[in-house]
C-alpha cells in the first residue's frame, strides 16, 4: 500500500512538470506581451500550438537520416526525465535517490548533443550555424553549471537534490555569500541554456543571431511539437531547480500528509508563477547581445560560481 502511494506521488510529480510546462511558457509570453503594450496570445496558446503541430503532416528533407527522425523523441524523453527528477512539491519521493545534480547536468548535455546532431543532419547552413553556436554556449555554460553543483554540494555535503532541498529548508545554514553567487550564476546559465534574451531571442525565426530556432528550422509536424514541448520543459526544469535549491520553503519534507502535500504543491506553483513573471521583466529590460559577447556574459557566471567555491574553502578550510 505504501509502495502504491509512493508510486502515485512520484507519478504526480512526473505528470505535473509536463502538464504545466506549456502553461509556464504561455505565462512568460503573456507577461512579455503586456510589458510591450501588446495584448498577447492567451496563456494556453502553447497547448494549442502543440496540439495543432501534433496533427500536422511532418515534412522531412530528402537526405534526412533516422537520427533526424528519432532525435525529437530522444530530446523530449531525456528532458522529461531530468525535469521529473527535481523535487518540486515534496522531497524523498520514490525515485529521489537518482536525482543527482551531476546526473541532471549529464541528462541536459545528452539532450543538447542530440539536438545539435539533428541540426546538422540535413546539411543546411542555418542548422550548422545553430549547432555550432549551441555548442559554443554549452562549452561555456557547462563548466559554470558544474561549479554551481560543487558549491551546493560543498554546503550540503551531498549532490542528491532531495537531500539538499531537505537540508536547506530545515537546517539553518546562515548567511552564505556563496549561495547568493551560485544563484546569480544559475540564473545566467539558465538564461543561456533556455535561449532567452540577451543570449538568444525565443520569439524570432529569421535572424542571423538565432541559435535554438536555427537548429530546429527544418522540423515540422509532430517532430516540432516534441521539440517545442521539450523546450518548455527545460524552462520549467530550470525554474524548479532554482526554486528547489534556493527557495525550498513550503516543500513537504517529512511526513506525506494531505495538508503538507497540498501546501507543497501550492508553494511550488506560486514559486514557478513568480519566476515565470520575473523572467520576461528581466528580458524586456536588456538588449540582445552580439554573439561575440557571449563568452563575457557566461564568463561572468563562471567567475561567480568559481568565487562561490573559493569562498566556501576560505570559510571552512580544506
Amino acid at each position: 500500500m505504501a509502495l502504491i502511494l509512493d508510486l502515485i506521488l512520484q507519478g504526480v510529480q512526473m505528470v505535473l512538470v509536463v502538464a504545466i510546462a506549456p502553461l509556464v511558457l504561455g505565462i512568460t509570453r503573456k507577461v512579455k506581451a503586456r510589458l510591450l503594450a501588446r495584448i498577447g496570445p492567451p496563456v494556453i496558446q502553447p497547448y494549442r500550438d502543440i496540439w495543432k503541430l501534433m496533427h500536422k503532416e511532418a515534412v522531412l528533407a530528402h537526405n534526412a537520416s533516422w537520427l533526424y527522425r528519432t532525435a525529437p523523441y530522444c530530446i523530449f524523453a531525456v528532458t522529461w526525465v531530468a525535469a521529473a527528477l527535481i523535487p518540486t512539491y515534496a522531497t524523498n519521493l520514490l525515485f529521489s535517490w537518482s536525482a543527482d545534480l551531476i546526473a541532471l547536468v549529464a541528462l541536459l548535455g545528452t539532450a543538447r548533443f542530440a539536438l545539435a546532431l539533428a541540426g546538422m543532419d540535413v546539411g543546411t547552413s542555418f542548422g550548422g550555424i545553430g549547432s555550432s553556436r549551441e555548442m559554443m554556449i554549452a562549452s561555456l555554460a557547462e563548466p559554470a553549471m558544474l561549479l554551481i553543483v560543487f558549491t551546493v554540494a560543498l554546503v550540503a555535503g551531498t549532490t542528491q537534490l532531495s537531500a539538499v532541498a531537505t537540508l536547506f529548508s530545515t537546517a539553518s545554514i546562515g548567511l552564505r555569500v556563496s549561495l547568493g553567487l551560485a544563484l546569480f550564476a544559475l540564473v545566467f546559465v539558465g538564461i543561456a541554456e533556455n535561449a532567452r534574451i540577451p543570449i538568444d531571442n525565443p520569439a524570432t525565426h529569421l535572424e542571423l543571431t538565432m541559435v535554438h530556432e536555427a537548429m530546429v528550422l527544418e522540423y515540422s509536424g509532430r517532430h516540432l511539437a516534441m521539440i517545442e514541448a521539450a523546450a518548455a520543459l527545460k524552462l520549467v526544469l530550470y525554474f524548479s531547480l532554482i526554486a528547489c535549491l534556493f527557495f525550498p520553503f513550503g516543500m513537504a519534507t517529512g511526513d506525506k500528509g494531505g495538508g503538507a502535500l497540498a501546501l507543497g504543491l501550492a508553494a511550488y506553483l506560486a514559486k514557478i508563477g513568480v519566476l515565470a513573471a520575473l523572467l520576461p521583466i528581466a528580458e524586456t529590460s536588456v538588449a540582445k547581445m552580439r554573439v561575440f559577447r557571449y563568452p563575457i556574459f557566461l564568463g561572468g557566471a563562471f567567475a561567480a560560481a568559481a568565487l562561490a567555491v573559493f569562498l566556501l574553502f576560505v570559510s571552512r578550510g580544506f
Partner: protein
Amino acid sequence: MQNLSFDIAHLLAGTMLVLSFLLLYQDRVTAVLNVFALQAIALALSVAWQSIAQNAPHLIVTALVALVVKGFIIPAALHRIVRRLEIHREIEQVIGGGPTMLTGLGLVALSILLVQPVGESAGTIVREDLAFALAVVLLGLLMMITRRNAVTQIVGFMSLENGLVLAATGAKGMPLVVEFSVAFSILIAFIVFGVFIFRIRERFDTVDVSALDTFRGERRDHT
C-alpha cells in the same frame, strides 16, 4: 551569536571581493567609479561590524573615514574629473576580459592558499579576512596592470588600499595614527594623481597611458 557574527563578517568581506571582480568586469568609466564607491561602502560596513564584534570602538572612526573619504569624496571628485575630461561616454577596451577574469580567479586561489598555513593558529575570522584582503589587494594590482585609462588605474590603486584596510582591521585593529596617516596619504596621492591626469591630457590629448610608451621611445613601430 558567534555564528551569526562570523556570517555577517563573511558576507561583508565576501561582498568586497565580489565587487573587486565587478571592477575588473566593467568597461565603462562611470560604472567603474560607482562600483568603487560601493566597495568603499562595503569596506566601511565591514570595518564597522568588526568594531562591534571585536568590541573596539576606535574602529568606528576607521569605518567613518572609509565611508566619507572613499565612499563619497573620492568617487564624486573622480566623476567630476571624468566629466571635465569628457571621457564619461568612452568604453574602455579592457585587455582580454576572459583572461583577466581567469587570472583574477587564480589570484584569489593563490591568496587563499597563502593565507591558509599562516592563519592556522589564528581564528577562522582572521584567516578569512586576511585571505579576502590579500585577494582584494592582488585584484587591485591586476586592475592597475590591465587598464590603459589613467582614471581606472587610479581606481585600481584605491581598491588596493581598500584591501589593506580590510587586512589591518581583521588583525585585531590598527592604531588610529596609522589609519589617519594612510587616509591622508591616499588623499594626497589622489590630488597628485588628479594633477597628473590633467597634465597627461594637456600634453597628449588622451588619458590612455599607452600614449606614453611612444613618448618613452618604446613601440615606435606602432605609430
